[in-house]
């Protein structure tokens, strides 16, 4: 059986282990390993622009994965994800600056600290749901944003906080090439954690809470516990993503972590596919690359029609909006779904049924 490179038509899985495997076929495992190997050698030949975009995708993807666990898997909603992202950034810088713990270790500590804050703000989720929960999480966005502006000891107040480059045992990861590995490490780790969480008892409980909370409760799942836990896990990933963001830029200012970014995170996971670990990454890639592709196209048109130079900015912004709308209309299940469809198409080619 193991020698088969493709999945047979029909469901031949006879044990629970086989049913919950991460890689459905040996080929898919090889593909993932090959992509990681490719990413490992990428800094050797890629220029800093490509690396910068990859790093951007990396830190956003870690945070988006967290939000997907909360929204896509547990069926909760959060309009305050950017604030947790920011909290992680400030927390990591603060831990490093005030205690001298190397940045490499302050990143996971910042994740834990953000998780604690997330658990606190997740408490209302035990009681309310739907739109009411959305508004409650909106409060966390505003409370944390205001906190960033006021808590000078923690965030540097209006002057912002300095974040040192990641360093361990005297080696500083301060170039795009070296920082890329840090992000890649956390990205792979987070996605392995995320994918495995969904195969565990707790992960199934989260999905049950989403699918039918009443049935879940009758089956003995503690709704309050799992809802709050989901907020905690989500904030943990947001904190890690934020910390990576902060140490990459080297400077953290409160103004970036606003509601717009929270909504952008939601857009990322909706476009990528709610309830899909892979989808989180795909959505982030889409959202990060779209403005770049549009800018590239606008740059080309600008040279052909110089008279349109000033309108290009607006055309670009509008086309980003239009691309998102078209996407939601034609692919409401997200990129992850489209990816599965494409795979199925080739698997059965030319005899799809």
């Amino acid at each position, binding site marked *: 059986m193991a020698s088969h490179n493709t999945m047979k038509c029909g469901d031949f899985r006879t044990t629970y282990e086989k049913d919950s495997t991460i890689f459905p076929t040996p080929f898919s495992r090889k593909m993932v390993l090959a992509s990681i190997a490719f990413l490992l050698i990428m800094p050797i030949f890629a220029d800093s622009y490509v690396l*910068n975009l990859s790093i951007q995708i990396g830190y956003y993807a870690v945070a988006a994965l967290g939000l997907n666990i909360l929204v896509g898997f547990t069926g909760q909603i959060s309009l305050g994800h950017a604030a947790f992202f920011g909290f992680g950034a400030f927390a990591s810088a603060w831990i490093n600056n005030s205690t001298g713990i190397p940045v490499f270790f302050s990143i996971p500590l910042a994740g834990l600290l953000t998780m604690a804050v997330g658990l606190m703000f997740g408490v209302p989720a035990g009681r309310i749901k739907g739109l009411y929960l959305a508004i409650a999480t909106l409060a966390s966005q505003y409370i944390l944003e205001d906190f960033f502006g*006021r808590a000078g000891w923690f965030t540097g*107040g209006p*002057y912002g906080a300095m974040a040192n480059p990641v360093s361990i045992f005297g080696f500083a990861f301060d170039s795009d090439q070296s920082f890329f590995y840090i992000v890649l490490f956390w990205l792979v780790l987070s996605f392995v954690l995320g994918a495995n969480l969904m195969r565990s008892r707790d992960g199934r409980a989260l999905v049950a809470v989403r699918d039918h909370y009443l049935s879940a409760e009758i089956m003995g799942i503690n709704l309050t516990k799992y809802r709050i836990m989901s907020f905690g896990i989500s904030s943990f990933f947001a904190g890690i993503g934020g910390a990576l963001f902060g140490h990459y830029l*080297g*400077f953290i*200012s409160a*103004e970036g972590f606003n509601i717009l970014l929270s909504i952008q995170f939601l857009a990322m996971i909706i476009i990528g596919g709610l309830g899909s670990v892979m989808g989180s990454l795909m959505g982030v890639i889409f959202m990060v690359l779209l403005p770049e592709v549009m800018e590239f196209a606008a740059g*080309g048109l600008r040279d052909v029609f110089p008279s349109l130079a000033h309108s290009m900015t607006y055309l670009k912004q509008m086309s980003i909006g239009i691309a998102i709308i078209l996407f939601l209309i034609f692919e409401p299940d997200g990129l992850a779904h489209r990816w599965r469809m494409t795979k199925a198409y080739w698997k059965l080619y030319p005899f799809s049924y």
Partner: protein
Amino acid sequence: MNKKLVGLCSTIALTSVLSMGALAEGIPVLHISAFSGPTSDVGQPYGMGVADVLKYTNQNGGINGNMLDFESVDYGYNAPQAVALYKKAMSRNQLVALQGWGTADTEALVGFVAKDKVFTMSASFSAHLTDPKGTSERTKSPAPYNFFYGPSYSDGCRGLVAFAADDWKKRGEAGTPKFVHMGMNHPYPNAPKESCAAYAEELGFEILNPIEYSLSPGDFKAQCLSLKDGGAQYAYLGNTGGSNISLIKACSTVGVKTQFLANVWGWDMNAFAATGEAGDGVVFVNSTASWNDAAATAGFTKLSAISKMTATDDDYRSVHYIRGVCAASNMVDAMKVAQMKGELTGTTLKDAMETFVNHVPAGLEGVCRPSTWTADDHRGMTEVLVYQTRWNGGKPSMSRVYEANLPRRADWLGW
């Protein structure tokens, strides 16, 4: 339908490829601006001013004959995108100079430009960018490659306080005048909060508790009522134009008689036009001549030629546009100096800029104000021009009412 789509896509792809091939050899400069996004109201005129100067320079002989290879890109006030644009430009060519915009991009890039040695000029007037060597104990990390044209937010506010002190003397009323800081709890309005309050206290003002109002326009009657209750004679407005318009309108409804002191992005003729009579008497910080004042000066010929890069006529340009022109023109002058001395790089450009003493960009006399940068002090300007808008019974006007010449105090460096 599909054929059309394919056609369109390939046209776009083809033109992009062609445009890449057509890259000119020149001095690599990146210009990032906020034509969209939350700060576009002032980001647009400022960015156009910068872009027009770069264009004008290329059409008039470049930098001693060498053309600027520049690109103006919108980043929508999104810091990660600004970093991406910067990296993209850097991966193509080692940049000599970067013309930036606001707090978001400038702060995100401070570390990168210092490491890559790229001369940077932006319109983020945060005082902590003025300390290139980190001599002040308040400076957390020095910003050696950052410059801006005009007084810092802190010095701007100090200038307004100096105006208020002078105004209070002229009024000849008894008692201690009260001063209040107003703005959102956000890095930009907060930037001068403490430093300015400290100076106001030195000048004998009583400092009231800051009043908070949102950066996005809204109904601010509650804030106006607490302003009225507090009885402040002078209120510093830290927010941008749109928000201040709402506030001033609301305060006029409530009957507040406070003298408003707006920061450099907080007021202009467009904002005044929106409030009408309610905006009568508002003063604000400026660092250039206004368009109408400039019309009478020697520098107007060049200003108008620059403006015609994107305008057909001598259309009125806001103070933000002129500020962009002055900022970019200072850089162009420094480029010429650096090139005469030898190789033009980010570092030689920075060194050239640091030799400027009371420098007014060539051809813009009367339009731009003299600036001085040294290797230890990047406070380009410590003089603050205070302008006032007047309603005049339906004939709105704007004129300079005060000029504060602040001392270059060592304890104010980076604060």
